[in-house]
Every structure is written in structure tokens, then in C-alpha cells.
């Protein structure tokens, strides 16, 4: 994803030359200190709500699991051993084995890796597209705005999951195509959001000041506009992580994504379907995993949204 790198790179570059004069820098420091105090206070309030803490714990655990899966998993998640099929939980296999004798626990742990990585990539791509389209549309306006927002309206006119299913299905079943389908459908809403934010600040004094001292359009967009909207948009999108995970595992459940033997929660659920009556745990484990992670992201997201909303914690 060269685009994501480009955004990160340009944001970093922008933060490097920000100070204009000493006074400005002084004032900036003071303001920063006040801001950090405010954030600190809010963070304390944020952590006082057990729901937020629960969400944070679940998300941190899930991410840790995903990263450390090779260290945590007792077996290779793709090791087929037919004489060990459908074993109950025991010493060798803490959660038992599936219909091909693969260790359930290892598959769940590696599944976290697959699911979170897929969702992360989708989120990053959605971001990159939404930022470009939204900024160009909001900043330049005119025919470009009409064209781009027309495309956004068009994509939003489709029922999202149906278009995603059709794209993934047409491109052929693979995890990559699930990512493409999800990103192709999801960016539109965020592009609209970014455009709205750009419209709200494009005529503010600091943008005019930058223009007055001769900054180029690109410079204004990246270092003045993006820096002001990046935070809120990142938070808003992160709190939709739960939805993205639900969508991805839904496509995988339908058999449009990860192909055997790749461990993925939605695909594992699908594997468990024929054994619903006799081996319900094959479906319960991955089901519980998806549920918990989505719950964690939703709880965390709600908390973060409140944190950003100035009316939540009145002084």
C-alpha cells in the first residue's frame, strides 16, 4: 500500500516544519500543555468507566494474541491428523480438535491474526482513499466535488454487503478479494465525512494565512487541513472496526474469503456448520471469538467517541 505510506510520510514531514516564529512556538507550547492537561483529565474519566476499560482490555488482548499467535499456539494450526479428529478437550489439545484433527486453540489464535490483519488492511485502505477523495472534493469544490461526491452517492446507493458479496464473488474466493470488496464498498461513507470536515475548516483564518504567505494547495491540504481532521476521523473510523470485522467474517463465512487450510474465524464457523448437532463447540468457539472482539471494539469505540465529544465531560 504505497498510498498509506505516502500519507504517513507527508504527515510526518508536515509536523517537522510547523513552527513559524518564536512567539508562535511559545504560544503553541502553552496551548499544547493545556491540551495535554485536558486530555489527561479526560483520560482519567475515560478509565473510570468499566465499560471502556473492558473494551480496552479485550482489544489489547486480541491484538496481543494476533501478534503472539506463533508463540502461544501449542500446535501448527494447519496440521491435519485424521486419527485425532473431533477430540474432546484434553492435555494435548486444550480445546479439542476439529473435523480434520487440527488443534482448535491454535486455529483460534491464528484466526485472530488473520481476522485482525485483514480488518487492519481494509481500514488503512479505506482511510487512504477517503482522505484523498474527501480532501480533494472539499478543498477544490466545483466539478471535481460534483463528480467525486456523485461516485460516493452511487456507492452508497447500493446495499453495502450485497455489493461486497458480489465483488468478492466475481473476483473469486480469496482473502485478498474480500479485502478489495470491503474497501471498495466502505470508503464512500468516510470520504463524505472527510469532505464535510474539510468544508468546515477550509475558510478558517489559519488556512487563509497559509495561503497569504504563499503556501501551495498541496501544502495547505496536507499540513494545515489534514493535521486538524486526522485525529477525529481516525477515531471515528476505528470505532467502526467492529463492523468491518463483522463484514469480513461474514464474507469468509459464506466461503468467499480465506481458503482452507487458512485459519479464519468466519471460515471456521462455516466448517463447523455440518457438525452443529454433534460437535457444537466447533461453531461456538469461533462464534464467541468474533463476538468478543467485536464487542471489545464497540465498547472502546463508544468510549473514544465520548472522549472526543466536548459535551460528555463538562467542566
Amino acid at each position, binding site marked *: 500500500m504505497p498510498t498509506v505510506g505516502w500519507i504517513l510520510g507527508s504527515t510526518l514531514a508536515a509536523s517537522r516544519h510547523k513552527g513559524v516564529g518564536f512567539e508562535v512556538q511559545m504560544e503553541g507550547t502553552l496551548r499544547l500543555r493545556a491540551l495535554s492537561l485536558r486530555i489527561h483529565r479526560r483520560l482519567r474519566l475515560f478509565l473510570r468507566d468499566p465499560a471502556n476499560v473492558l473494551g480496552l482490555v479485550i482489544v489489547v488482548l486480541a491484538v496481543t494474541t494476533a501478534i503472539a499467535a506463533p508463540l502461544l499456539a501449542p500446535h501448527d494450526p494447519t496440521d491435519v491428523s485424521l486419527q485425532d479428529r473431533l477430540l474432546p478437550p484434553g492435555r494435548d489439545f486444550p480445546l479439542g480438535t476439529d473435523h480434520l484433527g487440527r488443534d482448535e486453540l491454535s486455529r483460534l489464535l491464528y484466526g485472530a491474526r488473520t481476522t485482525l490483519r485483514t480488518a487492519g488492511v481494509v481500514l488503512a485502505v479505506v482511510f487512504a482513499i477517503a482522505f484523498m477523495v474527501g480532501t480533494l472534493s472539499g478543498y477544490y469544490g466545483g466539478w471535481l466535488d460534483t463528480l467525486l461526491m456523485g461516485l460516493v452517492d*452511487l456507492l452508497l446507493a*447500493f*446495499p*453495502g454487503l450485497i455489493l461486497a458479496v458480489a465483488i468478492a464473488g*466475481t473476483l473469486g474466493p480469496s482473502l485478498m478479494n474480500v479485502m478489495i470488496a470491503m474497501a471498495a464498498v466502505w470508503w464512500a461513507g468516510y470520504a463524505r465525512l472527510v469532505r464535510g470536515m474539510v468544508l468546515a475548516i477550509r475558510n478558517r483564518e489559519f488556512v487563509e494565512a497559509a495561503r497569504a504567505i504563499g503556501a501551495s494547495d498541496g501544502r495547505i491540504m496536507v499540513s494545515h487541513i489534514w493535521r486538524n481532521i486526522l485525529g477525529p476521523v481516525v477515531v471515528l473510523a476505528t470505532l467502526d472496526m467492529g463492523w468491518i470485522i463483522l463484514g469480513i467474517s*461474514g464474507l469468509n*463465512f459464506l466461503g468467499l474469503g480465506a481458503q482452507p487450510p487458512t485459519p479464519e474465524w468466519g471460515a471456521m464457523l462455516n466448517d463447523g456448520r455440518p457438525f452443529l448437532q454433534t460437535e457444537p463447540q466447533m*461453531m461456538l468457539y469461533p462464534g464467541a471469538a468474533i*463476538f468478543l472482539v*467485536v464487542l471489545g471494539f464497540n465498547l472502546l469505540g463508544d468510549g473514544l467517541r465520548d472522549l472526543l465529544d466536548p459535551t460528555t465531560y463538562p467542566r
Partner: protein
Amino acid sequence: MRAYVARRLLILPALLFGISIISFALLNFAPGDPAEIILRRQNPEEPPLPEAVRALRQQLGLDAPLPLRYGRWLFDVLKGDLGESYRSGTPIMSELVKRFPATMMLATAALALSVVVSIPLGIIAALWRGSLLDSLSRLLALLGAAVPSYVLALLLMLFVAVKLNWLPAIGYGSPKNLILPAIALAAGSSAQVMRLTRASMLEVLQQDYMRTARSKGLNERTVIMVHGLKNGLLPVVTMLGINLGHLLGGTVIVETIFGWPGVGRYAVESILQRDYPVVQGFVLYMAFIFLLANLAVDFAYRWLDPRLHFGRQPA
């Protein structure tokens, strides 16, 4: 109002045009040569002769330039002809029309369920803010938003149908068959509708006009029912339109699990069999339905909110 309706109706052809382009592109990106696929289906024993493929390509008009092919295809679509299934050779339109009532029934039942359950719950939660009932309904909303429809569907199947034997697990025809799929489909959107109803009611309850209504001596019942509900439920109407998209998308998964004979299951079966024309027809059909439904919801919203009737049109 009239200007608004006219404007929306004017955009409609543009959106339909865009939808048709995307649907057409979908089939064009599908891997494989349709002529070859059709010949292989007719005679799976031996690979088709190159001359036969060429002849069929010509007969199907596949060798014409892209814009011409799009024009011909669009002309057929406007006549109600979505082409024929690779698999069965039957006209796709008639297959979709035959299956759509089942899908519509399921989506309507789910929508009705989520309205009947979540709107009263949201109102009560807002009126009795901080009560046990409020906490309980919020918990329910959290759980409902995090549980994937396919997990809920399988759980309902396992416990309500298989273990308790209260309702049939699969099948179609009697109202009993409708209950489990409708619950599985409704859970996610119910959670959202409930949260929105609660939030919207809480906001309305703080408005000045509520205080005015009280201070002029209306009893609490009238204040809540007339002034509160009328205003508090407006955003919920818009939400229902968006939700219809989620529900239509969700039918793809829920129908597949419960063996429901709707268009969603037909589409998934066709995807897994690489029957791309069906997938294309399905997307076009569903997008059209969704567009009309949203238009209806929008007009209903305008009609319900008298603030939008007079003079100024909000941008």
C-alpha cells in the same frame, strides 16, 4: 417539498445509470470467457473447439466493442431481460421475481420485529434514564450489535430448534418457519435502532419546547406522546431506511443458513458455482429495490417533519 421531490426524481436516472455501469462492469471483470463457460456446461466431457467458441461469441455479441455491448445489455435490461443463468439457462429476471417475495417477507418481518421491540425499549430507556431497565436495554443493544447474524442464527438453530424442538430449524411456508430467521436478521439493526431512539429521545426531552409544553399546563402524558415522540422519532425514520439496506444485505447470510428460498441464497449458490450473470442481475435488482425504498423513506421523512415543508430547502 415539491421542489425537493422533483430534485430527487431528477437524480434518480443518474443514479440508475451509475448502478447499471457498476453492474455491467462486474460481469466484465468476471474471470473466464462466457462463451467457453456455456459450451463447457453443455458438454462437460471434452474441451470446446475454438471454432465453436468463436461462433458462440459472435452469436452472443461478445466480440462487439465495449460501449456497444453495454448499450445492448442496457436495452435488454430496460425491457426486463437480465440475461440467462450459465447454470440452468433460465431467464434470471423470472428467477429473481419468483424468489423475491420470500426475501421481502423475511426482511419485512425483521424490520417489523426491530421496530416493535427496539423503539418502545429506546423510548422507555430514555424516559427512565439511569434505571435498571435503561441499563438492561443498553446491555441488550451492546450484545445485539456485537453478535454476528450467522452466529445468532446457528445458536438459535441449535438451542431453539434442535435441543428444545420448539420451532423448525429450516423450511419455508408456515409462519413458524419465519420466526428464527427473522430474529437472527433483526438483532443487529434492532440494537442500532434502540440506541438511536434512546439518544434522540434524550435530546428531545431537553428541548425548550418540552418545557414550554409543560409550563402551559399540559399533562405529562400529552407532553411525551405529542411533543416528545413526534420529534424524537424523526431521525429513527431515516435510520429505518438505512437499516433496510443492512437487512437486505443480511438476508444473503441468513437465507443461506436457514435454507430460505429467497434471492440471497440464490445469489450465494450462483457465486459458488461461478454463475456470474446471476450475481450481476442480483446486484442490479437489489440496488433498484433499495433505491426505491430509500426514496420512499426520504419522502416520508419530509412529509412527517413540517419544518421541512415551508419555503427554505435545507442544503
